[in-house]
């Protein structure tokens, strides 16, 4: 383990303290609390994607599948088996992780576009299975396209803020660990030159599989929390390919394979879409498309990556 400076710990503790205290500054304004929750939610989601794809360079186009699995595990656990939320949400993460093991073991043997398409195919097929399972087998488990309505929670919005904050903070701690450990070096070596890394004695398969499962677990928990927060889920909603795309674009915008990439990208894009979405309801998606194209053309390394390159600053 590479030693971590005291300064870095101080900054982390400070960041956590600010995030914990933040909602108390605007308890009156539920809208602001919601935007704030969305920001940390997307930091967590794009952080999970960054964990796997940002560091290793394996482009996962189907992370949303674990979000959907997490949502459904929580929803089915709570409605059909009467489990409590505090049991079901962690269970969602565990089941997402268990599913990720065989899928990752197969898909991670593929590279480049093939890996991207395989993960994408898996996500789409899970969506179709959730949609059609009940009708095909005559059971009542996933409820098809009607979706599942979860019991309405007695908790305030602020409860979900803290739930999501815990997960997001854990994801960011893993980033921190990756930036400062031999394991992280292994991930980066896969990105730079996988074959050379393998020859140098890095067990690349184990390393990337571990990253894939870790990201699946946290995405699953986030899915469980969001399902209980929204209280209504449908397959086309929780497996929506736009969730994947948002994770990818936020990370890319911030900077792939950097600690601050997901934070900057998710904050920027969430605020931008809040502003554009309310100001320009009709042209919003055209603008998002244009912004994506412009970012790729002028800042292919993302905001953090570009700053790093220009100033040669090392974060943390």
């Amino acid at each position, binding site marked *: 383990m590479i030693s971590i400076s005291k300064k870095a710990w101080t900054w982390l503790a400070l960041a956590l303290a600010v995030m914990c205290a933040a909602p108390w500054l605007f308890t009156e304004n539920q809208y602001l609390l919601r935007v704030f929750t969305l920001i940390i939610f997307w930091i967590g989601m794009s952080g999970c994607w960054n964990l796997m794809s940002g560091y290793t360079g394996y482009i996962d186009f189907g992370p949303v599948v674990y979000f959907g699995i997490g949502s459904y595990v929580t929803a089915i656990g709570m409605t059909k088996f009467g489990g409590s939320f505090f049991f079901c949400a962690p269970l969602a993460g565990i089941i997402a992780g268990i599913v990720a093991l065989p899928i990752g073991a197969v898909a991670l043997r593929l590279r480049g*576009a093939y890996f991207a398409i395989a993960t994408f195919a898996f996500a789409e097929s899970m969506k179709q299975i959730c949609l059609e399972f009940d009708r095909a087998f005559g059971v009542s488990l996933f409820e098809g396209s009607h979706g599942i309505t979860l019991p309405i929670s007695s908790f305030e919005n602020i409860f979900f803020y803290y739930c999501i904050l815990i997960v997001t903070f854990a994801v960011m701690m893993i980033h921190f660990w990756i930036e400062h450990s031999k394991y992280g070096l292994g991930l980066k070596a896969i990105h730079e030159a996988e074959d050379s890394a393998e020859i140098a004695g890095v067990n690349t398969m184990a390393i990337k599989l571990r990253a894939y499962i870790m990201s699946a677990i946290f995405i699953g928990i986030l899915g469980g929390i969001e399902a209980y927060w929204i209280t209504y889920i449908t397959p086309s909603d929780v497996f929506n390919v736009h969730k994947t795309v948002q994770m990818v674009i936020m990370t890319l915008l911030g900077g792939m394979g950097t600690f601050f990439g997901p934070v900057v990208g998710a904050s920027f894009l969430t605020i931008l879409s809040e502003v554009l979405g309310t100001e320009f309801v009709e042209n919003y998606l055209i603008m998002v498309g244009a912004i994506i194209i412009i970012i790729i053309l002028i800042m292919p390394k993302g905001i953090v990556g570009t700053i790093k390159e220009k100033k040669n600053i090392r974060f943390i």
Partner: protein
Amino acid sequence: MEVMFQAIINGLLLGGVYAAYSAGFSLIFGVMGVVNLAHGELIMLGAYTTYWLFDLFHLDPYLTLPFSMAFLFLFGYLIQKFIINRVIEQPHIMSYILTFGIHLMVANIALKLWTHDFRTITTAYSGMNAAFLGVNIPYARLITFVLALLIIAFLWFFMNKTETGRAIRATAMDKEVARLMGVNIREIYAVTFGIGAAITGLAGSAIAPFVIIYPEMGLEYTIIAFCVVVLGGMGYMPGALWGGFILGLAQSFSATYLSAGISVAITFVILFFMLAVRPTGIVGKGLVGQ
């Protein structure tokens, strides 16, 4: 027995349709390594070209094919020349995300211009079937099937028998050496994307008489094109036919004997196992690697 024949015929016709609009995707991937996520939008634009020419000038849908081909060639050529060529030397992820941005822009501009109305083209011969040994064959699908074969034959001829085609193949094999031999790589890329877009637009026009046309139709076509091309072998042009037929038959059989909804799931399961077991496609001639 008749049900099975009908399922086979449906599957083959569907496969032909799939092959028609996937060949361009395969071409673009094979030459440039770009997974074109705006592929469905090219189909959408082709279909709308046909719709508007039919609606405003009462042209027969099949007479609009040259127009949509020319329009989409220009569209593809310009997009590659001025946008995608700028990131072509960078990691491929850039081009995925760039084409996704193009997908969002094109689909939503189309939504703004043409609203969310579902549009269909009704001609004198729509809904007409050829009955043959108790099996029904819709004319419109049959024509598209023949067109698909023609598109792939044309592509094969173009790639193997013309000077530009040779330059394209050389670029796909080794772009540095091709450059040394005096091939203008960027121009070749632009022409390749133009041709890919043109045949995709052609396919879009050809399916217009029997599908519902709306601005957001693109994404599902992109997804099917993905599956078809992986099944047949990425970058291997006749593979689009193989992939199309396998997928068409699998869907038609599962829709006949199981349920229509589960057929889509079966598609993806086939795709996933195909990638895991045989990523070079069913005939093993696809490109693998980065």
